[in-house]
């Protein structure tokens, strides 16, 4: 629900604001508004301290940072850290994992949420629809710690429910060591995301579906459209704007494929498939003390994320679709 609110406020034509006349700032005005200033300026200083000041730390990426030395004594090395990153097999692998899991989560997340929303919409009994929804939201509110615990238990070879069900269905002969083989890892992460978030993600689509004009369905029926045709040609186009906006918002987050799931589910055997940029940063930075390299990795992630967001926004603008900025 809060996401809808945000879209309303953020999707605004940027030119509208520019045309407004600005009042000159006078002492008198400031004196009149001193309460407003006291209520907001300290909070602004707070956010500058916690969100902007740390950006100064990005200088570490261009140095050979040693914690013992002061800023003036640090050795500047230019782009050496970045060059090292992109020739390092480790980092290339980490980047591949991050991108792959990010894309899997993105696509799987969108498809499952839209399909579930369409199917939920077909339940005519309000009571059942509510019940299913309520249950499907539940995992969203649990922490990843709890969810990964549940995933690990379900996939375990000792008595894990997934193996038991698959054996009972005679799909496999013996229990599979799901979490010890790299080839399953991306899929497990994707499925865990779906399990946790699919119900929650349908909220916004269901709200969008509910706001489609019923007359459109009526017209389609008169033209002889069946259930599937109505889904294809009325419902889906009706929620297209919502899909596009959410798509743009998520594309910026592709590199945020995650830290928690991979960190909590990963283990020595699947490390080649499980490590993401965030884990790389944590490992090199805090565990090994190579702050410069870790910061360079972090900067790379932020820059790519912002670029992707702007690109998605630009493409969408070109195509005449909704946009975020």
């Amino acid at each position: 629900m809060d996401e809808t609110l945000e879209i309303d406020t953020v999707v605004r034509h940027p030119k509208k604001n520019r045309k407004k006349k600005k009042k000159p700032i006078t002492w008198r005005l400031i004196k009149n508004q001193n309460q407003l200033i006291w209520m907001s300026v300290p909070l602004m200083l707070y956010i500058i301290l916690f969100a902007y000041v740390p950006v100064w730390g990005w200088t570490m990426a261009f140095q050979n940072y040693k914690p013992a030395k002061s800023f003036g004594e640090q050795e500047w090395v230019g782009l050496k850290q970045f060059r090292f990153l992109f020739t390092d097999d480790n980092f290339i692998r980490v980047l591949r994992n991050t991108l792959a899991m990010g894309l899997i989560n993105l696509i799987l997340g969108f498809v499952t949420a839209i399909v579930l929303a369409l199917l939920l919409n077909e339940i005519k009994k309000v009571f059942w629809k509510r019940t299913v929804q309520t249950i499907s939201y539940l995992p969203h509110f649990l922490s990843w710690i709890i969810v990964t615990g549940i995933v690990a238990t379900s996939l375990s070879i000792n008595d894990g429910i997934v193996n038991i069900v698959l054996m009972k269905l005679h799909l496999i002969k013996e229990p599979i060591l799901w979490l010890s083989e790299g080839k399953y890892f991306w899929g497990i992460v994707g499925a865990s995301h779906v399990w946790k978030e699919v119900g929650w993600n349908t909220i916004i689509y269901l709200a969008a579906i509910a706001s489609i004009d019923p007359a459109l369905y009526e017209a389609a029926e008169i033209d002889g459209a069946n259930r599937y045709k109505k889904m294809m040609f009325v419902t889906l186009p009706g929620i297209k704007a919502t899909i596009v906006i959410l798509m743009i918002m998520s594309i910026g987050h592709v590199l945020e494929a995650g830290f928690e799931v991979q960190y909590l589910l990963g283990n020595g055997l699947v490390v080649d498939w499980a490590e993401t940029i965030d884990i790389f940063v944590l490992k090199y930075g805090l565990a090994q003390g190579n702050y410069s390299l870790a910061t360079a990795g972090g900067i790379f992630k932020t820059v790519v994320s912002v670029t992707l967001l702007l690109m998605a926004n630009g493409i969408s603008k070109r195509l005449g679709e909704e946009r975020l900025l």
Partner: protein
Amino acid sequence: MMDNRQISPGPKAGYTVKRSLGTGRLEPILFTSFNTLFMVCLVVVTLYPFINTIAVSFNEGNDTIRGGIYLWPREWTFQNYRAIFATGTIFDAFLVSVARTVISTILNIFLTTMLAYTLSRREYVFRQPITVIFVLTMYFSAGLIPNYFLIKDLHLLNSFWVYIFPSMISAFNMIVIRTYIGTIPESLLESAKIDGAGDFRIFMRVVFPLCKPVLATIALFVAVGAWNSWFDAFIYTSSRQNLSTLQYELMKLLSSTMNSNGNPTVQNGVGMDQNSARAMVTPLSIRAAITVVASVPILLVYPFMQKYFVVGLNVGSVKE
């Protein structure tokens, strides 16, 4: 809408007539049964792990290892719960979690709403720059290492306040609240002003109480976020056991009960600490018990949250 319905048969009536005459009688039945089956599977897949965890948490530890616990405990016991609360570690972590959740939620709501109010005043001279400064924070982050150094320089490492200070205001929530404040009639604020109230007073006496519905929703989200977070405990306060949170304790237990294959280990008798490590308690059952303790508060507030996030759906359905 109402007028429409009286003149012509509503869209609902249209549907039912068409459907029974529509594309054959079998198709709707097939679809409905497929859909029902699908929803039943969804519900089972979502709920089973919870029920299983609860069953394991009430089952006798060594008996669980034999396998076959699905929906109901075989050998009832409260031993697992007694064991986690006997050591005090988990109970302390529980208290820290409660404290951080309560304090952060109160501070977060108060400060975010106050900021949202000032940024909703069109006449405010610094409205534009301050809004931009906050909105930009939604799109970038300095990253783990620079943030770690900031916390270190502020002497917040190994302090309780590291759970509170870095996340006192969220730009996203600020925008949501600001939008809501925009729906309050201007005349109401105007009349308070004429009565001689300053901006702070207007905020405290008029705006804050009027924002209750949206604040309830946001408070619940902030609280769930604070309750569920563990990463700050992991990197900032891991050397102070008395500042550990419940989620972090669960995380430590999770990683210690996984062997290198990523499967839960099943050895006997490794309890929370040596004193309680009787043969009856196993890591697996302890983990289940802590998982239940960590999710109970969420399950308790869940029915209240429900009321708020379903509102959006109801608003849509009024149209039909």
